[in-house]
């Protein structure tokens, strides 16, 4: 770990310290303001062995430099937890790299911006001089100064385009960068030639400001990509978090989940998610597999059985040996399906690329036609070439290159404020085309965690007493009891003296006798329940039963109604049992539903819809949904989803509400209409200016004005999307 994180450069550079320790970058979930920023840094620095800490509010990360002999990643996570922040280590290899390209583009943009400003300054003097009484010798001198600024600037800042154009030409393709590079290079060299001849047809200003505007577009595009990737990484890291490793001597050690290797043994406490696929070595009990199968009823596990990452341990602590992911049959099948699905999606072509495919040949054609036309009409080759360059500069997709990135960055900022992370920029385009919305059940329409269902039937006294006992436990059922009690009576005060017997339940000894909260067996009740229940037995009183079920997200029915109202077909696909699915479907108002589906069957169903001409927007969270998310036209998953699903989805939303799906759809639609408006603006400019350029009446002044105004107009139009509608 010698590579220093870029976030620390500033701290280290400004303070003249040369930290020699290891660098660790942690994703910090709930850091929102300057106060949090300081608390995070202070908490990290309090860890013995910490040398420097620097938090970034924009990235929601903190970088720490520490002495490896005295501290470990787990210490920092624990310290931040104590301060009230949820933190998780990021995979070291994946931080950095991304920023390098973004910074390179920013440097190019700065150089181009500097050159454009100065050349424009000089050009304005020349243009006004042409109308006035400028000494021709002075005008020539000014053009030479422009050339001196423009040549190095183009050589440096033009590289991103030249490289991309070269790569495209090598692959015998044409992309947007080919006409861009051609226009810039031709314009620059032709202008140098014209300056030598003392002509007025000099395009340094146009060439450099063209470069500047194009780089703004590129930079915005890259920023969007980097930010989305960073956010997604944070989410995944926070989700997998920290695991307890059992080392060969039997000692236990905290380690980041992504560092697990096949063969590692790990301990999964009650109420904890299993972090990796593996086989049970010791312990038996129940696990909640809803994230994998969609099935809400807990499943029994015993020694030697396979368990999957993302499942929740409801019973006794389990000891698990980690296995390679590809040896597991379910995962192998899922990955195979995913691969096939992603190949299908690669066929989607982004709006900008489709525009470029029409645009690039048209630009080349017009430029060539202008050159040949003027030469055949008897003009000199210099005149012909100058007019052809004017055509290339006018048509050069300045506004076009800004049209889509400017809109997309505005749209993703807007969605980000509404707790939706845009992972794939073209997802915004695809979601706008959807005409059908398909939901998964568990964890998507529902919250994916148990809630007390007949809390009203339980006596007030019993619920209060049970909640006080349950408040000490982290078990999902205990939490559900506490949540139900808090909803009815307000704050629950935990009682002391509660002992947790793993796999059985909680107990407390009082002078009058014993209180027990836990499984039917543990409470001495003979029950044939399906497992989603907990009993509470107090001295001398009949035992009370608490039953649990997954609860529907509070606004699920409204969201479904709103979607139907807008003319979307809504359907639900689930791996859960028929009866449960039907009940939920009726509750939220979905008529089309399928239950007990395997991952391949979900894909088949979606394929059938696609064959009918529907474009499906899929919302799902489970591992079993991952292939369906990948195959759907656009997809979204909640932040609580299995990591493979989050990777497959175009959008990730946070929070307990389903409304972000509506926001994503409406923002996607507005983004598309704005991108189209922007294209229209660019087109109108071209329709007016191209004939003028071909006729040879466009002067460098007109070219400069036209280009700048169209770019500004396009950016201003996109800003409307980000500016309005704060939540």
């Amino acid at each position, binding site marked *: 770990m010698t590579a220093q994180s*870029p*976030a*620390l*450069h*500033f*701290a280290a*550079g*400004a*303070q003249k*310290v040369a930290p020699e320790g290891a660098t660790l970058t942690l994703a910090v979930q709930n850091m929102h*303001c*300057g*106060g949090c*920023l*300081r608390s995070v*840094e*202070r908490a990290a*620095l309090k860890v013995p062995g*910490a*040398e*420097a*800490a*620097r*938090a*970034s*509010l*924009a*990235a929601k990360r903190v970088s720490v430099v520490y002495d490896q002999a005295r501290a470990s990643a787990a210490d920092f996570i624990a310290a931040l937890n104590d301060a009230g922040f949820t933190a998780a280590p990021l995979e070291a290899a994946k931080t950095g790299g991304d920023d390098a390209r973004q*910074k390179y583009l*920013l*440097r190019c943009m*700065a*150089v181009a911006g*500097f050159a454009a*400003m*100065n050349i424009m*300054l*000089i050009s304005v003097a020349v243009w006004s001089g042409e109308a006035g009484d400028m*000494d021709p010798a*002075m005008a020539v001198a000014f053009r030479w*100064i422009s050339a001196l*600024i423009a040549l190095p600037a183009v050589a440096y800042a033009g590289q991103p385009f030249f490289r991309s154009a070269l790569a495209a030409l090598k692959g015998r393709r044409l992309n947007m960068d080919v006409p861009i590079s051609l226009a810039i290079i031709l314009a620059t060299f032709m202008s140098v030639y014209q300056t030598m001849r003392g002509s007025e047809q000099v395009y340094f200003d146009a060439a450099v400001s063209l470069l500047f505007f194009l780089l703004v577009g590129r930079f915005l595009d890259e920023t969007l990509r980097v930010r989305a990737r960073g956010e997604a990484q944070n989410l995944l890291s926070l989700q997998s978090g920290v695991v307890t490793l059992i080392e060969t001597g039997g000692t236990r050690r905290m380690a980041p989940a992504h560092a697990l290797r096949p063969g590692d043994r790990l301990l999964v406490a009650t109420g904890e998610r299993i972090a990796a696929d593996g086989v049970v070595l010791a312990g038996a009990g129940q696990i909640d597999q809803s994230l994998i199968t969609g099935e809400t009823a807990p499943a029994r596990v015993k020694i030697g059985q396979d368990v999957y990452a993302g499942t929740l341990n409801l019973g006794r602590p389990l000891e698990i040996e980690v296995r390679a992911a590809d040896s597991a049959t379910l995962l192998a099948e899922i990955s195979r399906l995913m691969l096939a699905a992603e190949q299908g999606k690669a066929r989607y072509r982004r709006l900008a690329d489709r525009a470029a495919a029409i645009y690039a040949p048209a630009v080349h054609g017009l430029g060539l036609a202008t050159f040949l036309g003027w030469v055949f009409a008897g003009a000199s080759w210099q005149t012909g070439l100058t007019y052809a360059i004017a055509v290339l500069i006018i048509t050069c997709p300045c506004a076009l290159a800004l049209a889509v990135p400017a809109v997309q960055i505005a749209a993703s900022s807007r969605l980000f404020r509404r707790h939706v992370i845009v992972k794939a920029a073209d997802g915004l385009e695809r979601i706008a085309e959807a005409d059908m919305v398909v939901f998964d059940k568990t964890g998507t329409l529902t919250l994916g965690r148990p809630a007390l269902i007949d809390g009203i039937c339980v006596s007030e006294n019993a619920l209060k007493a049970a909640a006080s006992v349950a408040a000490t436990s982290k078990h999902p059922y205990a939490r559900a009891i506490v949540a139900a009690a808090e909803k009815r009576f307000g704050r629950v005060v935990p009682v002391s003296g509660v002992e947790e017997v793993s796999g059985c339940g909680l107990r407390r000894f009082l002078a009058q006798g014993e209180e027990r909260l836990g499984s039917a067996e543990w409470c001495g009740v003979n029950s044939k329940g399906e497992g989603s229940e907990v009993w509470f037995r107090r001295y001398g009183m009949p035992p009370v039963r608490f039953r649990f079920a997954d609860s529907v997200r509070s606004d699920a029915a409204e969201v479904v109604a709103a979607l139907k109202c807008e003319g979307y077909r809504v359907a639900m696909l689930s791996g859960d049992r028929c009866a449960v699915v039907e009940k939920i479907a009726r509750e939220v108002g979905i008529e089309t539903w399928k239950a007990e589906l395997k991952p391949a069957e979900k894909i088949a169903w979606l394929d059938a819809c696609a064959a009918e001409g529907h474009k499906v927007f899929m919302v799902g969270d489970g591992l079993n949904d991952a292939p369906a998310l990948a195959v759907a036209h656009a997809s979204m998953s909640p932040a609580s989803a299995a990591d493979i699903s989050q990777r497959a989805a175009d959008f990730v939303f946070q929070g307990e509400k389903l409304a972000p799906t509506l926001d994503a759809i409406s923002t996607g639609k507005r983004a598309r209409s704005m991108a189209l408006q922007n294209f229209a603006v660019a087109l109108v400019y071209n329709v007016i200016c191209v004939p003028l350029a071909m006729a040879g009446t466009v002067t460098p002044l007109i070219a400069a004005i036209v280009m700048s105004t169209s770019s500004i107009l396009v950016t201003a139009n996109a800003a409307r999307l980000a500016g309005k509608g704060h939540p």
Partner: protein
Amino acid sequence: MTALAWLVPIALFLGTLGLAAFMWALRSGQFEDLEGAAYRALEDDRLEDEDLTKK
């Protein structure tokens, strides 16, 4: 007109200075966290120095 012989190089020099300052700021990581920097400006500088380089 001789004024221009001075003014143009001066204008270019100042522009280059600005560009160099931007490059320095970029290189030293001042654009890493634009949101956080807004809050850091309000922090007590003395405290900040102490905290960042705890010996």
